[in-house]
């Protein structure tokens, strides 16, 4: 289609943010309404995108314009079954976050919405760009607004969290920069697709390994995988609600997306060779993340750590797929594993997004997140309880809700390829159930009612409006997974058969 839909999706938020910048900062209502309105455009477009996506056609909606011919850098964007769901997710969560924030953000409104739209652009950019330099530019641009969202509207230790977040990510991305240059010098192109097709470093494995780990670092920090996860609890805990939602919902996905779009296609040999290492890290992330979140007494921190665990599933699926590279008969299992991984990414986006919103809801009222401080709220705020229950159950992978399918496919695929990893990883499921039901549900909602909260208000309309879409998707994809798996599966099968 000739309408540059991806470009529009990406840059409408930028336009919006610039307009916001020019608005008088007293007109807060106007700014809020305007930003939300703007964020609807990409949302609608991304739905159209999904509808018009021809899932068997590979990269589509391509646009290729020379940007820096001198070094063969192009403005090259495109989307396929892998990126489209994520684009939609981004649009959805951003709109909801903006809507939610328009009720909760009280100070420095203008800056907030300006930055948020900027952030949206950055995230879209990463998902659509098919040129390394373009990718890198968006990748880094996303950093800055998030740095401010945490640093300005965050909690007590926000400055620390913000700088930590920024530096961690920067470390990774500068390493990636070197690798990108290396790839260019090897292949003579910055085009992700072409470079992957040319298989850089195929003749020099060691150099390839260097580049592999450099890029791996960048993405693994973002995901985050086990030893690199340490920025996440701080960032999540300190960030404002909307910030955490985007952080968990999308920024973490940027890392995973990178693995799928760049690392696997670019370095199949290296990835195959190092797959056991990655798998081990993934399993550690799963179990370790689950156990650590079981030890939390701060609701938000608990959910933050749960992200580590859930992202572990994604990485496990991916690692398993890489594990089996080269063995022809494994295609089905690989595809299943990667479907699961991508599906899990999407699910984690909506589920954890919802959970962070819910944390925000209670924090707005109680001004504490200490699990010990609550108790017996179920009868006081049944509506909140209900939503939290659904989200929690989805997060612990209860069949019938979205979360289950991701885990099932990941484990199914992994089990066929590397049963032991799967068997160990499965332990995570038990612990997840434990911390969701025991720590969250039981401590907050069940048991004798804590009179301290006698005048606790149940969810307001705007909060319900924010959460219903997410809950809806949990149920929808839980009951009828083909809706999304069809899209993903086509892309993954294509990707894998390309690597065979």
């Amino acid at each position: 289609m000739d309408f540059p839909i991806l470009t529009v999706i990406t840059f409408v938020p930028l336009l919006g943010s610039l307009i916001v910048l020019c608005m008088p900062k007293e007109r807060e209502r106007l700014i809020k309404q305007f930003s939300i309105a703007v964020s609807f455009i990409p949302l609608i477009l991304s739905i159209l995108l999904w509808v018009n996506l021809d899932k068997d056609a590979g990269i589509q909606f391509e646009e290729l314009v020379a940007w820096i011919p001198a070094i063969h850098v192009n403005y090259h964007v495109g989307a396929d079954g892998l990126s489209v769901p994520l684009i939609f997710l981004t649009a959805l969560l951003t709109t909801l976050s903006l809507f939610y924030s328009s009720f909760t953000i009280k100070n420095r409104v203008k800056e907030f919405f300006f930055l948020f739209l900027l952030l949206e652009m950055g995230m879209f950019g990463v998902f659509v760009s098919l040129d390394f330099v373009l990718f890198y530019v968006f990748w880094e641009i996303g950093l800055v607004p998030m740095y401010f969202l945490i640093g300005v509207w965050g909690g007590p230790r926000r400055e620390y969290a913000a700088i930590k977040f920024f530096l961690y990510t920067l470390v990774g991305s500068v390493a990636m920069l070197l690798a990108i240059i290396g790839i260019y010098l090897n292949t003579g192109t910055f085009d992700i697709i072409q470079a992957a097709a040319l298989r850089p470093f195929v003749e020099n494995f060691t150099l390839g390994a260097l580049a592999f780990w450099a890029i791996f670092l960048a993405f693994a920090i973002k995901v985050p995988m086990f030893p690199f996860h340490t920025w996440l609890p701080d960032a999540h805990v300190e960030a404002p609600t909307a910030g955490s939602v985007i952080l968990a919902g999308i920024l973490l996905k940027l890392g995973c997306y990178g693995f799928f779009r760049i690392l696997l296609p670019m370095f199949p040999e290296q990835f195959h060779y190092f797959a056991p290492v990655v798998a081990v890290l993934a399993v550690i992330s799963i179990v370790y993340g689950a156990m650590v979140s079981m030890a939390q007494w701060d609701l938000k921190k608990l959910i933050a750590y749960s992200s580590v665990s859930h992202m572990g599933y994604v990485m496990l699926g991916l690692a398993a797929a890489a594990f089996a590279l080269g063995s022809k008969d494994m295609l089905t299992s690989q595809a299943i594993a990667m479907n699961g991984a991508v599906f899990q990414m999407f699910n984690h986006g909506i589920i954890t997004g919802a959970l962070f919103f819910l944390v925000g809801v209670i924090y707005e009222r109680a001004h504490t997140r200490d699990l010990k401080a609550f108790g017996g709220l179920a009868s006081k705020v049944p509506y909140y309880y209900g939503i939290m229950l659904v989200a929690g159950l989805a997060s612990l992978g209860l069949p019938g809700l979205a979360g289950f399918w991701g885990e099932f496919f990941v484990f199914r695929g992994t089990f066929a390829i590397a049963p032991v990893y799967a068997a160990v990883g499965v332990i995570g499921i038990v612990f997840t159930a434990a911390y969701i039901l025991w720590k969250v549900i039981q401590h907050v909602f069940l048991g004798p009612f804590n009179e301290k909260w006698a005048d606790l208000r149940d969810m307001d309309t705007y909060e319900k409006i924010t959460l219903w879409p997410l809950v809806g998707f949990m149920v929808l994809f839980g009951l009828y997974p083909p809706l999304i798996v069809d899209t993903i599966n086509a892309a993954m099968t294509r990707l894998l058969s390309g690597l065979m």
Partner: protein
Amino acid sequence: MTELFDWVRLIPLFPFLAFAIILLFTQRNQKLSTYLAWVGIGLAWILGWTIAFRAMADPHVLEEGFRAPIFAIPTGRGLLELGFQVDALTTAMLFMVPFVCLMIFIYSKGYMHGDPRYSRFFAYVSLFATGMLGLIVSDNLLLLYIFWEVMGLCSYLLIGFWFEKPSAMKAGLKAFITTRIGDVIMFLGMLLLYSTTGTLSFHEIFSEETLHFLKETMVWVPLVGTVPVAPVIAILLFGGAVGKSAQFPLHVWLPDAMEGPTPVSALIHAATMVSAGVYLVARMFPIFALLPETASMSVVAFIGGFTALFAATIALAQDDIKRVLAYSTISQLGYMIAALGVGAYVAATFHLITHAFFKALLFLGSGSVIHGAGTQDMMEMGGLRKKMPITFWTFLVGMLALAGVPPFAGFWSKDEILAHAFEEFLHKGVASWPFFVWLVLSLGALLTAFYMARQVFLTFYGETRSHHMHAHESPKVMTYPLIALAVFAALLGFAGVPEEFPVLGPLFGHNFFHHVVGHAYPATPLNWGVMGLSVLLALTGLFLGWVVYGRNPLKHGQPDPLTKLGPMYTLLRNKYYIDEFYSKVIVRPAVALATLLFRFDNSWVVDPFVNLVGKVGVWLSDLGRIFDLNIIDGIVNGVAAVTAWFGKILRLTQTGKAQNYLLVAVLTVLLLLGLYLYLPM
């Protein structure tokens, strides 16, 4: 014909709709909610029975099964098809499940009357009905697992229904987590099956070639070595059954589950959900039986047999009317499992059905007692026979059925199990597990009869043992279901009368049940000796019960005669201290480990440099001056500390004295010079 069977898709749907509507819209209106739930399950029941009876008359369906696909999920180049089906086993279950559910739904109206979360109760039980019905009609393991988990959730919600009670809320969690452990093992089994055969749908798994393939395939198991895959799958799947059907060692959750409302206990923890474990084993029986000489069968048999006896013993020493029934349930489930373990497929399923009816009856009866007497402690009851006659008589029927007194339902099914076990034992000899099974089950029969007698006598005979008790008969809405269930508890057994049995055999269509379910399996020959023995044991048990509790009923304040057993009694009463054991050996360590890991995360991983900073940073007095103190710790400071340290050193060179600078410069020149002069040499 097929048109009708296609409707099977709707069976789980009706209650689900009821659930959704109640939860979303009619929370406020209790009446409407009730009727919605009734309508939902009612429709399911009607449709279920229509389909069931049609199927019974349709050998094709009974042998081949009929499948109604729902949707397929793409898996790489292949597909994962999900759907519903009707076959022999499903038919049998369809006969039992919706009806029992309906009865309990009706009963609940009375029992839950006036509860603040009345509507939500009906929503939950409707969701549960969805789960159970879906489970029995799903045509593949994955769908079965899904409904399996849904039931788990409902059980969690309903056990913890009165979540203000800490005990209730804890029980719910315990139930969920314990079963979840089993489920995870089952999940692995499912994964293994799926990745070995590439399919999860039953008819494909049980097709000749797949079974043959499974026979051939070997798999490497850590610590065990290379073994045939079938028993591994079987045992892993069995893990799920152990969890759901509360078999040893995962039985601990079921007694606590009695914290939930009694209808729930009756529905979920007696009649339906707990038997789902048995159903699973029955469903996957071909895989269990694929290589009979391997561990798959014996493990099942041992676990079942052991649990049967073990739970029965505990049941002896319980005073809570519902806990007794709970342990008896565990024990009876043990019977079924053990039956499957010795290959008594038909007998097991038959017992599953009959047990569902009379155990539901007993629970509802006990519920009615509790409703009337306002306590659960049998030691406080007594003499309720006159105050609540309907309850008493129906309860008596259930008790006789459970005790295995002819001609009540329990007798026929239990006897068939014993007979089959004995048969196997004759083939395999004394040193075999069928012998063990037959032995413990017979022993169990004795104990069952005894503790049921104890219960009845303590509850209904003698004089009331608490003064402030104004027991009254329950309302009709509760008693009618009792009667209905009592009828089945009394008569259902005739559906499975052995063919050779004089008069009755031919009269009731030559073991009708076997003809429905067991077309693939030979009928168990009638064995008068075994039958006689089992009757004898039952009567002995009852007699002993009468001797101890019936002849001269307990007075107020009188201790339970069993206390004479001394330490043995204490041990039983405390359920062999298994709960304590678990909490000490598993739960606490797990939590401790988690906390430990977090400390580790906080102190070591989160900030690899923290310690370094702690040490370096301390004697770096002026660290705080550079960055605000609120950014002090973490990697930020790792960098800060190390670099600040450099910085400190380097700043010393910046003395502000021009000549020092110059000296540095000249020294450098000299250094480079020297370097280059001496490098080549």
